């Protein structure tokens, strides 16, 4: 692996120095600079308020490989706009050099080769170093966690999120909001929240029975004489996208009117209004245009990493990526109750360049120790890069679908289009930890059932509309359901119910017949009482049989209308 010295020829952006609306290229000025911890942390202090944003860490305590999406299509007004810009277009948009550390961190191109040069990213011990350094410069900085924190790894599943709770408490979070946290169920969420040393915010979480707010909607922090209101917005489609029966006491939803009311309410009490959001980027952009008075939206859920904030009216939207790859630092100048300027940096957490914080490293080791042998057991070796992120099947999904078809003796496999799950590099062993990183959840049963061709089409249409509805308020985030054994054509710009066509059963090459039944197996059903072995056991069994993984290119989905 690369040493810190080898980074010296590489360049990484110093922050674009942004005040007001002057959004410039991220980093052209940094070509001669060195990729060292000092350079990664360089940030000329600005203004009188500092926000630190992390989001969607998905329980990744340790550094990961994570390939950003190649295909991330925007529809309607979002078409061709960030975050729906990928690869070479993304590099061009931000003036980044192909092959540079930024290109590796932010795009999919040459991922394997660049990964070998620049190493893994993230790790909560590295994040701790960054947070401590920012706090050393700005003791009053607020650390805000956008949620999807307690879920996503084998250790988080086995400890019901406790490993992450312990780590984030040690990191010193000031407030958080939530999404996958709820998949541990109401009781577990309450047990954790009751003991949290910081508020668990959710302006849009309501009691089902009384239709009343159930959690603190906001917290007002006083920092160096400035009052900062942080409004939390949990994932709006919690009971739809995840199993509502696990938290039946609560209703979520966008609740735009309530957000507007709260912004008005806190405006009277605070100098700065921050929304800590798990809406997803397109939803946040729409909300920023419709709800006036939010200064900063710290956006999570859709896992987008943007080198610059997006400005909507007087609101800046900051998107800080996922899996611990990035930490955003936002310095703001707040005078007389107005945000008059900002400076922002999306800090890439290059694990080989940033020294681990010893205290956090020790905590992580202690959390992992009881499970170490199980985590590190090697199940197979992969010759292909395994990744998931993208609107359609990644190689991880193809592997999972192949395992389902084979182990569950099905004609068609369905696998959820979640956006989490670290990558595995070619030549690496697939450990149980890596497999669980792509599959772990509290509803991982791999069902086997029969569905008619008509029903299958309905499922594909339904998920397609959650992703490609032109109105962001009707999007749930996530990506298209992954299919094995089933090919189809999708017109992403067609209206609801008319996007899917040319469905084919790949084993025979025959068209899917609407009235005929097919044996379908899949996992992550949101229905209560779903039966079947856990998906990671299904895939593990498959891996042990095949020994070596090689994923052929997948052309089963034909995309139109993009």
């Amino acid at each position, binding site marked *: 692996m690369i040493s810190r010295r080898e980074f010296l020829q590489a360049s990484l952006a110093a922050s674009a120095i942004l005040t007001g609306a002057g959004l410039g290229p991220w980093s052209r000025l940094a070509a001669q600079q060195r990729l060292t911890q000092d350079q990664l942390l360089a940030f000329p202090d600005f203004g009188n308020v500092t926000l630190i944003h992390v989001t969607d860490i998905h329980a990744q305590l340790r550094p990961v490989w994570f390939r950003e999406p190649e295909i991330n299509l925007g529809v309607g007004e979002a078409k061709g706009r960030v975050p729906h810009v990928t690869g070479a277009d993304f590099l061009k948009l931000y003036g980044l050099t192909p092959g540079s550390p930024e290109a590796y961190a932010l795009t999919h191109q040459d991922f394997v080769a660049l990964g070998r040069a620049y190493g893994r990213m993230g790790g909560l011990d590295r994040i701790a170093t960054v947070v401590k350094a920012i706090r050393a410069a700005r003791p009053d900085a607020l650390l805000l966690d956008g949620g999807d924190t307690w879920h996503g790894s084998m250790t988080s599943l086995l400890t019901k999120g406790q490993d992450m709770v312990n780590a984030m408490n040690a990191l010193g979070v000031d407030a958080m909001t939530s*999404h996958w946290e709820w998949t541990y169920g109401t009781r577990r969420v309450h047990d954790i929240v009751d003991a949290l040393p910081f508020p668990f915010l959710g302006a849009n979480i309501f009691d089902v029975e009384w*239709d009343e707010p159930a959690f603190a909607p906001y917290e007002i922090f006083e920092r160096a004489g400035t009052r900062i209101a942080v409004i939390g917005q949990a*994932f*709006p*489609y*919690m*009971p*739809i*996208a*995840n199993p*509502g029966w696990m938290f039946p006491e609560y*209703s*979520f*939803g*966008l609740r735009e*009117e309530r957000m507007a009311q709260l912004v008005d309410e806190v405006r009277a009490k605070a100098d700065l209004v921050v929304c800590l959001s798990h809406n*997803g980027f397109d939803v946040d952009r729409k909300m920023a245009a419709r709800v006036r008075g939010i200064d900063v939206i710290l956006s999570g*859920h*859709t*896992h987008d990493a943007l080198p610059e904030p997006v400005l909507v009216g007087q609101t800046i939207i900051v998107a800080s990526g996922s899996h611990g790859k990035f930490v955003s630092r936002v310095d703001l100048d707040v005078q007389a109750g107005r945000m008059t300027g900002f400076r922002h940096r999306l800090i890439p957490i290059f694990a080989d360049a940033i020294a681990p914080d010893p205290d956090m490293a020790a905590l992580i080791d202690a959390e992992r120790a009881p499970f170490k042998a199980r985590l590190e057991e090697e199940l197979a070796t992969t010759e292909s890069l395994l990744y998931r992120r993208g609107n359609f099947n990644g190689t991880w999904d193809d592997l999972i679908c192949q395992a389902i078809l084979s182990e569950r003796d099905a004609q068609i496999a369905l696998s*959820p*289009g*979640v*956006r*989490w799950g670290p990558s595995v590099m070619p030549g690496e062993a697939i450990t149980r930890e890596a497999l669980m990183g792509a599959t772990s959840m509290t509803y991982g049963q791999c069902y086997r059932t029969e569905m008619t061709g008509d029903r299958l089409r*309905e*499922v594909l249409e*339904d*998920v397609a*509309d*959650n992703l490609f*509805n032109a109105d962001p*308020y*009707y999007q*749930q*985030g*996530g*990506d298209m*359901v992954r299919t094995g054994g089933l090919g189809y054509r999708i017109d992403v710009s067609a209206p*609801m119910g008319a996007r899917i066509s040319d469905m084919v059963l790949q084993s025979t090459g025959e068209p899917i017949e609407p009235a005929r039944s097919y044996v379908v197996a899949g996992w*992550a*059903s*949101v229905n209560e009482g779903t039966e079947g072995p856990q998906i990671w056991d299904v895939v593990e069994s498959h891996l042990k049989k095949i020994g070596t993984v090689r994923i052929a290119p997948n052309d089963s989905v034909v995309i139109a209308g993009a």
Partner: protein
Amino acid sequence: MKLSRRETLVLGLGGLAALTLPLPATAAVDEAIAAFTGGAPLGDGGITLTAPEIAENGNTVPVAVSAPGAVAITLLASGNPVPGVATFAFGPAAGSRMAATRIRLAKTQDVIAIAKLENGSFVQAKATVKVTIGGCGG
């Protein structure tokens, strides 16, 4: 007593008629609107309909409607086999002209609220509520 075609069918065939409605859904909605407004034009504004963008449970979708100055508000589920949901009447002593209830939605559709105001005019508001299979959130 004046019976619409649909009501006649419901009377004749019982519950089955609701499932085999011979009228296109839009015709049933138009008919329900006409029954409430007598064909008067519909204005916008002055009525607020609050409904979730995506239903958490299509069997019980919370909707609220408010129209200051309304003497009656009718609520329609345009995509249901039977679009009529409820009509709320407000007397002169009503402190606020708002109503909230939970309704069942058969599929993704527009929910429509129409208020009859004290001056005899009508205003309407619409909200699209998506009813989804769910799953696969990122």
